[in-house]
């Protein structure tokens, strides 16, 4: 916004300059590089318009139409808000989202505090454990909780007669799958604290508690707010958890599914989507504002804080992390165990019977291979498109308005829940008049929706990496008459390789685990493992669902491992220059 204002002012200033001197302004001649870069950027922007803006627009317009496609204003909305039963979903969604946020943030904060501010042993192990949930579809904790606390659950007494099917289950599963997201933000927030503040506070003889409340908490304020909004958005837009363990407790995300799938009411599905967009967009805006503030805070020159050993404190933190870590590993372990039990709870012998997916709903092993294929394409094409887009925005010359617009397009996907995106795709791509109609029902549309769904975080990763590069590389290579793509290929890509690998792994793992957008878009040829988990659970094949979820975990973990090894190998070969 500000940038746009600046550009407008620049344009006006230039116009004034011309008028004042009565001469002509200098219109720069565009070199070949400029043309290529601008065309490529326009092309990627066009991709985002077709794959994001137009579908969303179609969905918005669908929400103000009747079944016949006639414009009826806000009638659908009036009907929605006039139905108390549907209205209750909003309350339910907010309720579980708020509770989950409070629980997740509290746990994640102290976990992050232990990781960054204590000298407890095994910190890297605990960090690794905490990131496990990222590798699993959000349905997995739901399935595990059924085994733990369901009516036949191993630990159901712990719920004192309360049912796991409902808000209790939703909150527990949501905490599991949002935990690593919150943790990463909070670890970053706590890592940037300035050691000098602590030295000053200690010199003034403040107690550990007082330092915590007067120094630590205020410094981590933005991280906390940001993490809270991320968790809130994740929970309120997640569909897997309430689907598996929500029981009769309806939330907005499952409402969309029920409206569309159950009642065949696409218009009402669009209305619920728009309602679901509101909290997501608010969270998005708040997060943007906070990001900006946090950057400002970061720019101050701080001395990194080195934690000092303290026996009692370290032991307390270790105990806390051990409990949380045990719960995370436990939930994963239960799913693994469940997938190997022959017939819970009557035949506890171990077998691979539940891995015979071809006898179940969901598309069988084919789904698994489809997921691998889809995730590979998403990682490959997505990384290329997203990194190039970020490069043109960051390193292009001139064309300020275009770049601002592109930046906006690249940030927008963060505000759009996957479920809403998937529904919007149906509306947009499944029209025979649409020239892109041929994509409907193909692997390509799954790949596209996944790339768009996870565009923003990847884009920001790429931009951060590019910003760290010397801004004059492009100027130097232009002076050396080297075309930009040569420098891009020989310098930018190798230097940014760690970030590029991060993006590709992020896309791959998310493509493996995501359900929300693709659940509306898969076809007979393109069933996916994550959707198969959902469908098998729907059909009552919970153990095979757990088995497929575990296949996803194994795959994501294996790919991460390969990625870690490859990164190390690559670092040795191509990043030799990093060593002195």
């Amino acid at each position, binding site marked *: 916004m500000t940038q746009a204002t600046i550009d407008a002012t620049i344009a006006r200033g230039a116009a004034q300059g011309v008028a004042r001197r009565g001469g002509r302004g200098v219109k720069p001649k565009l070199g070949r590089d400029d043309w290529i870069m601008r065309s490529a950027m326009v092309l990627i922007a066009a991709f985002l318009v077709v794959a994001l803006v137009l579908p969303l627009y179609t969905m918005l317009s669908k929400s103000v139409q009747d079944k016949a496609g006639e414009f009826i204003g806000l009638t659908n909305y009036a009907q929605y808000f006039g*139905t108390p*039963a549907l209205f*209750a979903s909003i*309350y*339910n969604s907010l309720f579980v989202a708020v509770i989950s946020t409070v629980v997740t943030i509290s746990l994640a904060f102290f976990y992050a505090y232990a990781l960054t501010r204590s000298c407890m042993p095994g910190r890297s192990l605990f960090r690794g454990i905490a990131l496990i949930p990222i590798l699993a579809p959000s349905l997995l904790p739901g399935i595990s909780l059924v085994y733990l606390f*369901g*009516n*036949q659950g191993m630990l159901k007494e712990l719920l004192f*007669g*309360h*049912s796991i*099917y*409902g808000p209790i289950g939703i909150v527990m599963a949501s905490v599991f799958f949002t935990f690593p997201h919150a943790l990463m933000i909070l670890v970053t927030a706590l890592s940037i604290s300035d050691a000098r503040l602590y030295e000053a506070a200690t010199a003034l003889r403040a107690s550990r508690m007082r330092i915590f409340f007067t120094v630590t908490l205020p410094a981590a304020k933005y991280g906390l707010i940001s993490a809270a909004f991320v968790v809130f958005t994740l929970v309120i837009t997640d569909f897997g958890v309430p*689907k598996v363990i929500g*029981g*009769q*407790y*309806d939330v907005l995300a499952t409402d969309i599914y*029920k409206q*569309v*799938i*159950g*009642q*065949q009411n*696409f218009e009402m599905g669009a209305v619920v989507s728009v309602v679901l967009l509101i909290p997501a967009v608010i969270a998005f805006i708040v997060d943007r504002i906070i990001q900006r503030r946090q950057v400002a805070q970061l720019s101050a020159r701080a001395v990194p804080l080195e934690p000092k050993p303290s026996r009692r404190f370290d032991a307390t933190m270790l105990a806390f992390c051990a409990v949380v870590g045990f719960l995370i590993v436990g939930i994963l372990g239960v799913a693994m165990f469940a997938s190997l039990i022959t*017939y*819970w*709870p*009557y*035949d506890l012998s171990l077998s691979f019977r539940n891995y015979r997916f071809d*006898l*179940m*709903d*969901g598309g*069988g092993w084919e789904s698994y291979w489809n997921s691998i*294929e889809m995730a590979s*394409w998403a990682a490959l*094409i997505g990384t290329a498109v997203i990194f190039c887009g970020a490069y043109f925005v960051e390193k292009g010359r001139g064309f300020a308005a275009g770049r601002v617009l592109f930046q906006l397009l690249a940030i927008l996907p963060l505000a759009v829940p996957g479920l809403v995106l998937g529904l919007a795709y*149906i509306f947009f791509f*499944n*029209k*025979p008049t649409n020239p892109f*109609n*041929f994509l*409907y*029902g*193909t*692997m*390509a549309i799954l*790949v596209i929706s996944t790339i768009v769904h996870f565009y923003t975080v990847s884009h920001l990763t790429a931009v951060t990496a590019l910003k760290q590069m010397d801004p004059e590389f492009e100027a130097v290579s232009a002076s050396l008459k080297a075309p930009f793509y040569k420098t891009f290929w020989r310098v930018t890509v190798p230097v940014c390789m760690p970030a590029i690998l991060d993006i590709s792994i992020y896309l791959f793992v998310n493509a493996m685990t995501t359900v929300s957008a693709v659940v509306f878009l898969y*076809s*007979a*040829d*393109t069933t996916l493992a994550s959707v198969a988990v959902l*469908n098998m659970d*729907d*059909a*009552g*094949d*919970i153990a095979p669902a757990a088995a497929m979820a575990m296949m996803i975990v194994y795959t994501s973990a294996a790919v991460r491992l390969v990625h870690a090894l490859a990164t190390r190998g690559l670092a040795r070969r191509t990043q030799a220059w990093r060593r002195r």
Partner: protein
Amino acid sequence: MRTIRMKTAKRLAGSFLGILAATGLSVGIANADTELTVYTAFEADQLKEYQQAFNKAHPDITINWVRDSTGIVTAKLLAEKENPQADVVWGLAATSLMLLNDQGMLEPYAPKGVEKLSPKFRDSANPPSWVGQDAYAAGIAFNIYEAEAKKLPKPTSWGDLTKPVYKGSIVMPNPNSSGTGFLMVSSWLQLFGEEKGWAFMDALHENIGVYTHSGSKPAKMAGSGEFPIGFSFDYRIAAEKSKGAPLEVIFPSEGLGWELEAGALIKGTDKLEAAQTLLDWAASREANELYNQNFALVAMPGIAKPVENLPPPDKLEAMLIDNDFTWAAQNRDRILSEWQKRYGVKSEPKE
């Protein structure tokens, strides 16, 4: 092997090379082999056998299944009305097919040998818009272990199940997504009349633990004892019992709701010939014998043998209510909305 490679090539093209390559390849595929997209609500474990048997007779036609619960397949077909993706529907509730027919989405076709099928199992129009394959009926899966542990008496009628002793012990499919769920609700309304039907469901609702998405899940949940009583359909309960679940199949005394599963051509398919071949085969004796491995009641009269853990076909047929499909299809929307309004959303979880 070749199909797999071709499929991969097609996907590659679709993802990467764009329109030209994709259309080029799909033309190539059409010449070698016809791929039919078949929407179905048949159970996943049935599909493989049906496909193998069909391909033995017609190896040149490849079936791409889109399988989901009845409600979802119906919704998907309606959603794609402007741009149908399916060529054939095979094994979908007749109620849903009637709905699609009202929307003008079906291409009437009389498969070879249709006259050998029971008239009850096909559309009365000529040529019929849809032709049935089998029928399945509502049933109750009763977990003997858990019932004993919880001291639950064995129910014999639908009415028994409204008793407070069963509070939180019953699981049934959500009629919005599940065909089984819908046939139950529709049968209760037909059996007891609208007013008493809803009153029955109000009382039943008090005892329901969870409404599931699919019609199979209650049988499986009852099988694992997650809930001791599951409302499901005959074949699924019998199959779970065969797998070793401690279940008893109960058919309530008032009568059973039931549904026909039928097939039809989707209007506008560009693979009409292959689609007709499939429907011809679906009406054949061979196919009906296959259906009979899972369903006690099939379209071709006189061939049905008893299914393991289910009563013989004639006995089962005697328990079915006199189902008015036309009424069910016409009132489907209204019934589902009413159901949704009454039981769809609960702000508090069940104890």
